């Protein structure tokens, strides 16, 4: 293939290889030689791609929740929730899972890949059975978030440098440890999200306990779960007449 586009070049008739410039490095995540998303030929053919029936149903149910093209909407709206389904099912956004989702949604796999690669929580590589996200943002850092991340890395053998830059797997590959930006729980600082549930405030020693509990399949630190916490100001009876004599909710 010549590196210069011929004047009669028509992307619709081209082969995928025509999009790859010879000799240039290619970002695999975004350009695996596929066509741009509008190109109908690249949408996986339902006759060819096998999609488990329950998965198809789940995806279709999500797509149906959003306004369709007749209401100015688009099935693409379901992209993030559908990728969540794929990640929950296969552990991460696997290429096969993405093709299956693309097939049901009738969009290209490349489109879903580009969405997945944008968002921190969607993973385009294996992520282990358990995920530990340790907040190292301002409030948690002030209260020991970095040291907590150190402790998780020491306990699991995950690489500290990599854990601070997007995540690292434990030595046995079962636990993903990742430093994270503010998780919206600075009142628990320093805190961590363990398999999508919040825990804090954590001592460094809690890292060891959490990892042991995950490995034993036990409930993680029940005493430090966010859902068990009361309001910071405790139970407070209102005496303000504007509040007690008001109408509507919370009366």
């Amino acid at each position, binding site marked *: 293939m010549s590196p210069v586009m011929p004047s009669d070049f028509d992307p619709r008739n081209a082969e995928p290889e025509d999009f790859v410039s010879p000799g240039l490095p290619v970002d695999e995540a975004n350009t695996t030689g596929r066509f741009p998303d509008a190109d109908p030929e690249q949408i996986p053919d339902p006759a060819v791609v096998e999609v488990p029936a329950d998965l198809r149903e789940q995806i279709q149910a999500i797509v149906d929740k959003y306004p369709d093209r007749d209401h100015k909407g688009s099935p693409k709206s379901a992209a993030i929730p559908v990728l969540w389904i794929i990640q929950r099912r296969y552990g991460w956004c696997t290429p096969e899972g993405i093709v299956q989702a693309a097939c049901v949604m009738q969009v290209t796999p490349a489109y879903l890949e580009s969405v997945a690669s944008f968002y921190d929580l969607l993973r385009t590589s294996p992520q282990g059975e358990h995920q530990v996200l340790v907040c190292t943002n*301002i409030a948690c850092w002030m209260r020991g978030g970095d040291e907590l991340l150190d402790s998780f890395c020491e306990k699991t053998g995950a690489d500290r440098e990599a854990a601070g830059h997007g995540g690292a797997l434990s030595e046995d590959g079962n636990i993903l440890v990742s430093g994270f930006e503010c998780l919206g729980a600075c009142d628990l600082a320093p805190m961590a999200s363990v398999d999508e549930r919040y825990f804090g405030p954590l001592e460094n020693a809690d890292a060891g306990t959490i990892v042991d509990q995950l490995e034993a399949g036990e409930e993680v630190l029940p005493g430090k779960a966010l859902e068990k916490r009361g309001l*910071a100001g405790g*139970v407070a009876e209102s005496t303000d007449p504007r509040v007690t004599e*008001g109408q509507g*909710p919370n009366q």
Partner: protein
Amino acid sequence: MSESNGTSKVTETRVLLRHAEDPKMATLAGYESYGGYQVLKKALKEIDPEWIVNELEESGLRGRGGAGFSMGKKVSFLPRTEEAKYLCCNADESEPGAFKDRELMQRNPHQLIEGIIISSFAAGIEHAFIFIRGEYDDQADILDRAVEEAYGAGYLGKNILGSGFDLELVVHRGAGAYICGEETALLDALEGKRGNPRLKPPFPAVQGLYGGPTLINNVETLSNVSHIVANGADWFKSFGTEQSPGTKVVSVSGCVKRPGNYEVELGVSLRDLIYGLAGGPLDGREITAFYPGGSSSPVLTPAEMDLPYSFEAMAEAGSMLGSGSIIVADDSVSIPHMALRTAKFYRHESCGKCTPCREGTNWTEKMLQRVVRGEATPMDLDIISSVQDNIMGHCLCVLGDAMAMPVSSMVTKFRDEFEEVIASEAAKAWNTALDGPDSPGRDENANGDEPGPGGTSPEEIRRERLAGRAIPSGGAS
């Protein structure tokens, strides 16, 4: 609980968080037992949507997501046409320091849903979405359940309570990107794209989701709606100050004894919030600085502790109330390191669309790294400040400004501390060069060693304090 510093006992004014400690409140039955959905029933039957729009505007309710724009005005901007219109509730809550929406959704999801239904009814909207950050999995599950309950009770869906009004409500989970909180990026994310901000105008009220007129409001803003419709604008204005009416759920975090969400009337003093409710600094510590409105607000100092906490007072002090999140730093926190953390966050979250933000956040982080390593010169501090000036006002969305404002405030107000860190780190580096790599000054984690020749830096004090804190009680040697 007695306060050691002489502040009088301060109490919260709970409207949104009233009875929130009762776990029942998160269920439909519980919410209804406290008077929930009564206003909705009344509104659908006998209230003119125009009256609601007017009352919201009259109440002076200002957006609780950051910008503080009048909620009622925003509703009134939507065209009164039959075309498809949308409501998006912004539950992305990703700004460092903010965690109030989490508490509101977790403890009282139906208050939000009722607010969404009434707002949609007022604006003639038939499709509503709650865009919740993906990390809030627990809260999204709670919302999913609550929405299902509301459908079951006939508060959502077709022909709600026989009124002829239809509304679909979808809980949409994001997947980890701060920029999706910016309203136009949120729209892109909802449309299933990578979340990149759009050029404004057109504003979302004219052309938003799927190109239709769209109302975007924060969780707390919408949670206030049914209270205002039930009690009227004058009732709402009896709370707070003239320009900042109502109550506010304030997230206080960092170096305080009792971090958490406290609901107060706008206009209470910062001292009441930080010392009275949040318990003040840890024993033996002193507050040195605080962000009054999340990590994107310029920092204030203890000299400003007696200011009222309102939109206008914070603006006058050169900062902002923003989302209502106070992060407190004490004398164990190194301000240059705090500036670096702040810059790092915004560098990581910049979507990269505009050059001043993409390059500016990157450069600022790198230069602050040089500061804390002692590789910078005091002149570099001027360069940092001028980079911030060049970011402000030159970007598509305000993420760039959100870094520039706090960083530049720290460099200006704590310049001495920046210069000290440069000098002490540089001295350490020199000693290392002279004495070899085993010089005690080099190892940050060294225990029991003499303080480095440059003196003990605040960062070291912080580490020492932490080392003390991390020893389980009774196990200290």
